[in-house]
């Protein structure tokens, strides 16, 4: 019944997206800032250091923070303009209740009344249908303190197993593969190891647009002789000048990795001492790749055989190397297998745990790493602990002051939670910083499920497309209005500093959640007065776990420009590079560098399986989706920042000229892309930089322009990541669509 009360355009008129631009003190060079605060960008997993300039409790600009070692002042356009998300006309300054007589479909509600209403509805639904009838959707842009509190809130306050987060759409395939192969889920190396690699292998990562600062690391490696290999269905900006471009057919990554390992074995480009001393399972994997001859690999991957051989010739005998991958190989119904295939190539080379020898996924979200370690993932407890493990449950239950048996068991992934809404098992939801109406696949289903809920409360700072479905909206905080730690793609724990106070009735998210707990009469364990107190408890809860934060303090983080976890004691400096010989870990206890009882890494068979939906006569093309440099994820923030929208105002369909010719499409014409889920009409961008059998659409937009209207809700059976990167589609020339609901200037 959480149906939006009024039309989309009425809501847009009141709540945006409107575009913010530099005006007033932000444009006047005569204004002297009150202060400059060193903190980090709010957007991607690289977490670039930045100094924000403040005047009268408003962020008016930025200054590059040259000393922060990861980015040394460098920023992408999102980082440059991130300050324009503050003092925004769309900012939620008070609580709202859905009301069709209110402006834009909502009427203001005094904060305490809103909290009472939320608690009342949670209580009612849980009394009528049991505690599991209420679920929580959380976000990976939250600080680790908040992410930790959300997990505790769901399990201790709401006593529901149903909590999951939007990191499910990000790096969970890599996380699952890393745990299977290494016993730990973290980038194995700091990015500085890219600089001394002889070969840099990049699979399924549009580094220039999605992790722009990493570009300089790659180029710098090449200045010193590294060869750069890029695997992607599109000729990305990095691929343009890389040493070898492998234009892979979407969804065939495991086949390529198997083919490379096949050639490594054939030419004995193997580190036998490493394989024998530090791994198990090589023989089985070797048998499995025997069938992946170069000819077969070429046939399946769509890459020329000579290019595959060339890649193996460079990768195989290299002295040092760094393999990076991202959503391009992870957003698949076989995403975990793809990542395991990449890891097998790394393990066979023995090039890990040393300077210049590395492996990492490029985590996408601001706190993609830290947000997946401390308990907002459906099967996980703080410290990277396992909710199904009795010892792990006992440790965390003790810290939380509850009986282990009182903790609910593992829940389900966020998409499955919507299926539980359909089944009537989940009847109420609380969400924070998650915009599934834009970001989940087959989003017509998601909208229907939101409409079906008995009660939905959204905590956010803008009225996202998802919050439009809410019964109550609570005004949360921007990143710059709170403090806490996050963990970057490197595994570096850094400190977000509070730059300004929350405006109006807006509150820091952790305070809102505690207010709900108090109104429910379940405030025990939810009386923190500052983020540092949450961190203190998190340190205890993570102690002895794989993701051990017990030695991490704000002071140490600021003094060292970050602390790489694990950091198991106050005098421990942190662990920038994992798996170094002789390094200790709580699982192996000195038996070896990897996080298993025997200290050995695992080769895990990574068989190739075709995508869930293969092309056919009806839907003869492959659709793949991704990002552009000027927008971030569901666009809830970047679609409100004028200069970023100027750079990329709308989505488009990339089409190869050969395909365009068969459809009579010219550059700039409108075309309709249609899958079994839906159809959208956008302008075609006719470019030779994409495979002719594939079309690409960026996914940052809602409604009639939403790529996720088309995508398939197939998920990896292990990681539950959706298959955003490949499904079957057809394309036809179209007349211009009706204009979308105005995004007022």
């Amino acid at each position, binding site marked *: 019944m959480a149906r939006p009360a009024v039309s989309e355009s009425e809501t847009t008129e009141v709540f945006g997206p409107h575009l913010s631009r530099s005006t007033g003190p932000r444009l006047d060079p005569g204004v002297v800032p009150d202060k400059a605060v060193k903190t980090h960008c709010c957007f991607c997993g690289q977490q670039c250091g930045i100094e924000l300039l403040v005047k009268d409790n408003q962020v008016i600009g930025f200054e590059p923070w040259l000393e922060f070692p990861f980015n040394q002042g460098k920023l*992408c356009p999102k980082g440059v303009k991130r300050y324009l998300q503050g003092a925004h006309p769309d900012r939620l300054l008070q609580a709202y209740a859905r009301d069709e007589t209110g402006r834009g479909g909502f009427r203001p509600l005094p904060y305490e009344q809103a909290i009472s209403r939320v608690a009342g509805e949670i209580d009612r639904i849980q009394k009528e249908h049991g505690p599991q009838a209420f679920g929580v959707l959380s976000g990976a842009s939250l600080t680790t303190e908040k992410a930790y509190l959300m997990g505790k809130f769901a399990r201790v306050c709401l006593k529901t197993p149903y909590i999951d987060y939007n990191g499910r759409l990000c790096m969970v395939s890599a996380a699952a593969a890393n745990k299977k192969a290494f016993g730990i889920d973290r980038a194995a190396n700091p990015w500085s190891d890219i600089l001394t690699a002889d070969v840099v292998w990049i699979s399924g990562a549009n580094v220039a647009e999605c992790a722009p600062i990493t570009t300089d690391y790659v180029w710098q490696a090449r200045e010193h002789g590294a060869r750069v290999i890029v695997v992607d269905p599109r000729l990305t900006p990095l691929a343009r000048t890389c040493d070898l471009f492998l234009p892979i057919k979407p969804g065939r990554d495991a086949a390529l990795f198997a083919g490379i390992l096949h050639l490594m074995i054939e030419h004995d480009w193997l580190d036998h001492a490493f394989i024998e001393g530090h791994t198990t399972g090589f023989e089985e994997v070797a048998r499995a790749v025997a069938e992946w001859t170069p000819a077969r690999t070429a046939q399946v991957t769509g890459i020329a055989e000579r290019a595959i051989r060339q890649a193996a010739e460079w990768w195989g005998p290299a002295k040092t190397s760094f393999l990076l991958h991202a959503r391009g190989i992870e957003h698949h119904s076989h995403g975990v297998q793809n990542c395991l295939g990449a890891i097998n190539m790394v393990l066979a080379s023995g090039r890990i745990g040393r300077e210049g020898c590395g492996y990492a996924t490029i985590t996408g979200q601001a706190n993609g790493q830290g947000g997946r370690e401390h308990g907002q993932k459906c099967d996980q407890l703080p410290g990277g602990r396992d909710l199904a493990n009795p010892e792990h449950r006992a440790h965390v239950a003790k810290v939380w002051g509850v009986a282990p048996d009182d903790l609910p068991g593992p829940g389900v992934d966020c998409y499955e939670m919507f299926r539980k809404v359909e089944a009537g098992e989940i009847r109420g939801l609380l969400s924070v910083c998650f915009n599934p109406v834009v970001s989940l696949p087959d989003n017509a289903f998601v909208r229907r499920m939101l409409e079906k809920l008995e009660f939905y409360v959204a905590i956010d700072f803008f009225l996202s497309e998802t919050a439009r479905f809410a019964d109550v909206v609570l005004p949360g905080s921007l990143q710059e209005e709170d403090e806490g730690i996050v963990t970057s793609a490197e595994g570096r724990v850094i400190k977000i500093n509070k730059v300004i106070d929350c405006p109006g009735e807006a509150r820091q998210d952790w305070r809102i959640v505690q207010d709900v707990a108090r109104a429910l009469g379940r405030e025990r364990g939810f009386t923190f007065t500052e983020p540092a107190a949450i961190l203190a408890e998190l340190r205890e809860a993570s102690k002895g776990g794989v993701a051990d934060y017990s030695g991490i303090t704000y002071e140490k983080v600021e003094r060292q420009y970050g602390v790489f976890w694990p950091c198991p004691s106050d005098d421990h400096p942190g662990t920038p590079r994992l798996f170094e010989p002789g390094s200790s870990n709580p699982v192996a206890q000195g038996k070896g560098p990897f996080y298993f009882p025997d200290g050995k890494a695992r080769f895990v068979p990574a068989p190739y399986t075709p995508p869930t939906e293969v092309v056919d006569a009806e839907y003869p093309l492959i659709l793949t989706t991704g990002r552009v440099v000027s927008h971030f994820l569901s666009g809830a923030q970047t679609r409100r920042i004028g200069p970023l929208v100027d750079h990329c105002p709308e989505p488009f369909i990339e089409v190869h000229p050969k395909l365009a010719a068969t459809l009579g499409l010219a550059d700039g014409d409108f075309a309709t892309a249609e899958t079994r889920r839906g159809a959208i009409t956008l302008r075609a961008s006719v470019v030779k930089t994409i*495979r002719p059998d594939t079309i690409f659409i960026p996914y940052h937009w809602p409604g009639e322009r939403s790529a996720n209207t088309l995508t398939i809700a197939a998920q990896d059976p292990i990681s539950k990541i959706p298959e955003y990167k490949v499904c079957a589609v057809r394309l036809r020339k179209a007349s211009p669509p009706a204009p979308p609901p105005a995004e007022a200037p």
Partner: protein
Amino acid sequence: MSVPQSAEFFIDPGRCIGCNACLQACTECDTHKGHAMIQLDYVDRGRSPQTVPVVCMHCDSPTCAEVCPADAIKRMGDGVVQTARKSHCIACNNCVLACPFGVPKMNTGMNLMMKCDMCYDRTSVGKKPMCASVCPSQALLFGTREEVVGLRPGSRILNTFRFGSQTITTKVNMLVPKRAAVEHLDVLSALHEPPVGNDAGEDVLLAGLGPED
């Protein structure tokens, strides 16, 4: 952290990823807040993602200043060619038409020529220009020659350009591949060159097009 007086501006177009950070950051510079003085264009997007950033090259003998009838454009002792002085500029467009690099732009709303002044407010107090500070690929680099030699062993520094019969030397340097046998950059002939980089043509992308496995 202040940068040394001997720091210079270097451009390596081979590194550019077209991300737009330079252009966005340029609008944050105090001397021309809200206006970008950088141009960033695709060479031919239909064929390649190659992009080229263009900043003012700060010519040793600036054509823009030479053709200015109002003496509005000054070259400073340190070689920086300033944007037009508001008090002098008559918005005649001479500089816009004459600059061989196509850098100055007429701001008709302000009746003023505007162009990159190498972030004079920043560089004069030991800061890097905004664009080179933020550039994620460091296609735009601000540093000393010693730093550049260490960071870019595969490149050498060139600052001579030829436009037909006109030869220009500039304060801003280009980085070209060390092996490239050129002593100057012939800009007019480069105008007709296709994008540079990996072949994104059909032979690569069509190589493996086949039936679904």
